[in-house]
């Protein structure tokens, strides 16, 4: 009897562990500082998580398909710089689609290399991280990019505007999450992504176009990166070449925290959103209880490892690994 209960607890932890941890966090921080769960604070946390969040949504597709994307950080710098530059040259209405097209072209290149040529995604995207960073620097000549007329442009609406009483970045994050959640959860394409990541060989034998599915995942990731770049550019109306540097790892951390397995085949959009929120709220909560900014890195370290550890421990039914 006791054994069954233990198993039930294990499977509950495996399925909803991250949600339980999240709620525990919220309660803990709220007790420590009542300001934590006020609407103002919650909104400001979600707003500052929106850029990371939108990128994490796209990377979720890539990770579920059994691949990695380390290039999203430098790709985000690229789209931010490009859209800021084109804003003054051809106007915002044309700059945005042009930036999306260029970012999607980069995503298509990666998708081609990983999907059709079946190259190792870790190394391809590592190479592209460096290559796209170089491309951005070449494009901008190494200089910061600024919009000339910061007051008189409607371009700032994506990063600074409000609609329906909510900041636009939050609305965009929610809209992209809802759309991609439907695509992943309710369409045949979504099922193909899981199939390809769960067992690529079996998927191929069932007639699922593996290469095209992986290709599409990288396109989706690039589209999300372009959206994040748009929000970033619009929020600051000026940018350094390195604005997205290092974000790829934070994005990956959020996706992993949400419970997506790096082996592919598991994870959901909803869980990734939880992962993003956990990272955002931890950062905010630690500041509110008066800890140094950098403590969040150490806490994130512990949480990532604990989350993944408990996840696989629940699946294998043993806390410690069977490695001799």
């Amino acid at each position, binding site marked *: 009897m006791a054994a069954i209960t233990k198993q039930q607890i294990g499977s509950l932890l495996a399925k909803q562990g991250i949600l339980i941890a999240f709620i525990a966090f919220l309660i803990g921080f709220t007790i420590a500082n009542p300001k934590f769960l006020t609407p103002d604070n919650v909104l400001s946390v979600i707003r500052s998580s929106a850029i990371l969040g939108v990128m994490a949504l796209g990377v979720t597709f890539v990770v579920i398909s059994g691949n990695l994307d380390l290039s999203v950080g430098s790709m985000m710098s690229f789209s931010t710089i490009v859209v800021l530059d084109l804003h003054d040259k051809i106007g915002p209405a044309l700059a945005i689609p042009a930036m999306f097209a260029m970012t999607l072209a980069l995503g298509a290149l990666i998708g081609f*290399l990983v999907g059709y040529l079946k190259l190792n995604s870790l190394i391809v995207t590592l*190479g*592209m991280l460096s290559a796209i960073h*170089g491309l951005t620097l070449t494009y901008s000549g190494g200089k910061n990019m600024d919009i000339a007329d910061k007051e008189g442009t409607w371009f700032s609406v994506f990063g600074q505007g409000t609609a329906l009483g909510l900041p636009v970045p939050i609305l965009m994050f929610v809209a992209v999450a809802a759309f991609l959640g439907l695509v992943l959860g309710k369409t045949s394409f979504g099922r193909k992504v899981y199939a390809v990541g769960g067992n690529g060989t079996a998927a191929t034998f069932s007639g699922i176009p593996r290469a095209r599915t992986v290709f599409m995942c990288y396109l989706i990731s690039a589209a999300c990166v372009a959206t994040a770049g748009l929000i970033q550019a619009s929020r600051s109306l000026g940018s350094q070449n390195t604005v997205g540097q290092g974000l790829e790892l934070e994005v990956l951390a959020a996706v992993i925290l949400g419970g997506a397995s790096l082996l592919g085949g598991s994870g959901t959009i909803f869980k990734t959103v939880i992962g993003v929120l956990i990272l955002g709220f931890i950062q905010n909560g630690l500041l509110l209880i008066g800890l140094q900014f*950098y*403590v969040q890195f150490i806490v994130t370290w512990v949480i990532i*490892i604990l989350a*993944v550890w408990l996840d696989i421990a629940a699946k294998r039914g043993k806390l410690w*690994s069977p490695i001799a």
Partner: protein
Amino acid sequence: MKPGTVSAALKSGAIWGFIVLELIFFSIAGEFFSLSDKAFMDWDNMLLLLKQSAPIGIIAMGMTIVMVNGNIDLSVGATFAIAAIVLLDSMTWPLFAGLGDWVIPVAWVLALAVGTLLGALNGLIVWKTGVDAFIVTLGAMLGYRGIVFMFNGEQPTSHLNWTLVDFAEAKFLGLATASWFLLAATFVIWFIMTKTVHGRNAYAIGDNREAAVNAGIRVGPHMMINFAIIGFLAALSAVVFYSESGSVNPNDGQLYELWVITAVVLGGTKITGGAGSVIGTFGGVIAIQLLRKGLGHIGADTSTVNLVIGLILVAVLILDRQLNMKGKEELKV
């Protein structure tokens, strides 16, 4: 001849062919584009190149054994920074005030011990929890960097010890101190990987972990030792570099893991484990440094270096795939 010998020879020789190509290209291109009158293939220039390769190269030796073992370590850049801080800060501790210049070996040992411990901690977590090394060291990369920032905020940590600087800038038989450390690290890791049981087991585990377990190899301790080795080498790299420079910024070492992995992969080590050599990695390290220096020589800026290295990494993968194609097709039958 065993099947695959030709493609194996092609692959192991490719990095040296690439280096020769780079030398020829930059020598010729340098004649037309270079702003300096000095030839690129100058002996002094090549010696300087070896010295400049040391920080990345020393860590790359550790990454080779970790990747052959089937793991990866993303936290080396942060370990590098922590070791640098320990090295420079410990020399100012009142505890060691009476030691005079004997504080130098003490600081070195402290820095190396901290690096080894941080590496071993990663290894222990990978071993005991069964969490993938990519995730463990990704977390550690954030965590260790957090420790670096907590130490001194955004401020640099500086301490110049002139005896130490003299030692770091000294030359022995024409080679700089840093070059000697690179060569020593290369030799020791080469010895471990090719002449010891531990090295052979590391290959076996990376090639087929289940088979290694069935053969009675204890996977966990081997992995932990390798992580301790890369932690030690990341610290050694910091010790060599900061003995000379004397000042560490909290952001130092960032993206080192990417450079190191690029060098190791260029050198022919498989990211899935089981194959790779220290000599190949040494070639990869030299090739990258040559590219950085060569592009600088013909007047290209850093942006071009990033672009070219990224594209070369992808090109190497495509080439590698072409060379592997035939073998894989035979296996599919």
